């Protein structure tokens, strides 16, 4: 609540006072202050959460750490700002955060109208529904008249309205602000259904006391390509974001891990691996970074596959399959342009 009001106020004030005018060279600003300010969610198990010592962990913070390592060589040179579905865009537009890694769906209007630049999706998702097994519903088309908890200020709100209109059904929306609030309402049975991205549902369900009593309905009613994003108008900074993600994906493809990255940099004979890790050519310099940028990014938390497995993979409580998010060679959609 407080952060919401603060960032709304900041955003508006920034427009009025121009105090934090988003300048063209975000990289210079970031280097001057010595860290990357990264917007994450207020807490979704697996994707963004604080550990016992209060540090942010998860799939999204790991990407920010990789970026910090690419820029500074130090994965710790990053500070996190928790944002809600509603405050995130204001926070980014006003310059309060430098990059937003917060399971955000890339859409036309966010790209063209809100003026943000997205990286390639780092998680292909879709909106789903979670219900109690005990209510005996096995399809989203049987949800006529249900009370549905929904995070406000998200694409899910629009998808939900469209889905129910298309199927000529009625529902009672209960708008809520954060995932934690939704969980509380859903568990108190104040809503029959919780809807958000299927990955978020799996993550939330994993935190329940009795996950087996809840099912995620088979219908996926939307495409939700989740991607990190930055402000329009700074190509260099957008490139750093995009290619850091590509570096992590390529690393998985080439079998480069956090453990063997140094060794691969020294001994690999594959030209693209050598270019990526900076032992041949100087790709990083063209981004305004050190030539070891990708090496550092990979060493920060591992390649894309390692990050996925560590925080949301099938051995974690969240237990998500790779599915669409597997490498293209393995039937998924994760495909990086070549490092040439």
């Amino acid at each position: 609540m407080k952060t919401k009001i603060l960032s709304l106020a900041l955003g508006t004030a920034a427009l009025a006072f121009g105090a934090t005018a988003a300048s063209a060279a975000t990289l210079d600003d970031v280097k001057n202050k010595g860290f990357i300010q990264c917007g994450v969610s207020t807490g979704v198990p697996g994707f963004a959460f604080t550990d016992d010592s209060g540090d942010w962990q998860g799939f999204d913070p790991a990407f920010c750490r990789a970026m910090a390592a690419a820029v500074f060589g130090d994965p710790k040179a990053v500070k996190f700002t928790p944002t809600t579905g509603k405050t995130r865009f204001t926070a980014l537009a006003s310059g309060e955060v430098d990059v937003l890694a917060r399971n955000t769906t890339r859409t036309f209007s966010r790209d063209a109208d809100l003026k943000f630049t997205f990286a390639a999706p780092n998680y292909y998702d879709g909106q789903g529904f979670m219900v109690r097994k005990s209510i005996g519903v096995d399809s989203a088309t049987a949800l006529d008249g249900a009370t549905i908890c929904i995070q406000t200020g998200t694409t899910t709100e629009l998808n939900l309205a469209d889905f129910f209109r298309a199927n000529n059904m009625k529902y009672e929306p209960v708008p809520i602000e954060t995932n934690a609030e939704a969980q509380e309402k859903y568990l108190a049975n104040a809503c029959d259904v919780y809807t958000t991205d299927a990955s978020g549902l799996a993550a939330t369900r994993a935190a329940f006391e009795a996950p087996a009593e809840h099912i995620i309905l088979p219908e996926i009613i939307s495409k939700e390509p989740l991607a990190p994003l930055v402000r329009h108008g700074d190509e260099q900074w957008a490139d750093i974001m995009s290619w850091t993600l590509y570096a992590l994906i390529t690393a998985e493809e080439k079998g480069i891990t956090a453990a063997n990255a140094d060794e691969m940099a020294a001994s690999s004979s594959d030209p693209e691996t050598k270019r990526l890790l900076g032992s041949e050519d100087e790709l990083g310099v063209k981004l305004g970074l050190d030539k070891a940028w990708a090496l550092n990014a990979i060493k920060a938390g591992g390649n894309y596959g390692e990050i996925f497995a560590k925080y949301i993979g099938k051995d974690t409580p969240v237990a998500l399959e790779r599915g669409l998010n597997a490498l293209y060679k393995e039937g998924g959609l994760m495909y990086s342009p070549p490092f040439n």
Partner: protein
Amino acid sequence: MTVASGFADEVQPFRLGMLINDKRYRSYTLQIITIFLFMLAFAWLVNNVVENFARAGRDFSFSYLFQPAAYDINQTLIEYTSRSTHLRAAVVGILNTLLIAFLGCILATVLGVVIGVLRLSKNWLVSRLMTVYIEGFRNVPVLLWILLASTALAASLPSPRQAPVLLGGAFVPTNRGFYVPSPVWGDGSVFLGIVFVASIIGALVFGRWAHARQAATGEILPTFWIKLAIIILPALLLYFILGRPVTLEYPELKGFNFQGGLFVRNSFMALWLALSLYTAAFIAENVRSGIQAISNGQTEAAYSLGLQPSRTMNLVILPQALRIIIPPLISQYLNLTKNSSLAIAVGYMDITGTLGGITLNQTGKEMECLLLVMAFYLIVSLLISLVMNIYNNAMALKER
């Protein structure tokens, strides 16, 4: 400037320094400089907005208001679908804000007056309890009361399928809200409405007549009971003559939820109760201070004339106390209206939730949306002030 010749040697010719040194000009000079600086600062702010908008490549327009909102709202007082425009969504939000503000002000006033009077009670227990209530409510932020009310309602009441159906289906409390029967207006209910309005006017006319009669003859009539009879009896009679045109629709459990009847959502209840209880604590203090400001001599004088305590309160103390109570009461009404913007914490879709929330987020028009929301609160507050000031002037001491 022409100067009378006789004083020519006393009047100095105008010099620039006189703008500061001469008492006659100094205040004008300072005022002009101040207003100039103020306008400069304002122009700087506006210029910054324009420049930053240009730099961000965004335009300043309100055309988005006429595009489809694409989201659904749970509580709508007017027809609304996800295909309606953002403007209509904003109007839905405005009506929801006005509803909570209106009902909140009424409940807060009733509670506040009762509690304020009870705090002055000679009964030790009653006055202490009221003190605890007042200090408890006004010293905790209202947001916490709203959240507490919402959590308490959601956690303590059963889900619709286990909900008890009380009073023969007339009242169903669930953790999503309360279901009560809604009236169904059948044929002939128009006449019922006309008769009811006419009865109220009749009661008012009777009140004036009784007042004039009392002034002329000194006889006191039991006006309250007669007025009540005038208002209720004709409508009741007609209701049975027309064959009960108004029926009640009872809520029934269908599928996930109760259908039919009137659904009072938890978000509304939580916000309404918390805002009213919180503001009532302040109003109670206003009432108490207003009553205590009337000197005890007034009461003694009234008693010595043989007036009963209740009449003393109604005829002597309250009319004077109201003059003191009303101005701070206006502030409390304004506070309640503005505090209703905390609705978003419990998902009540007021103007801050629709125009200043979802619309802002879906369209990215922060500046436009926030300006509109601020303008709305400003206008509503000014209107409340205006109405209450008119009332205050009517109640104020007429000095002749």
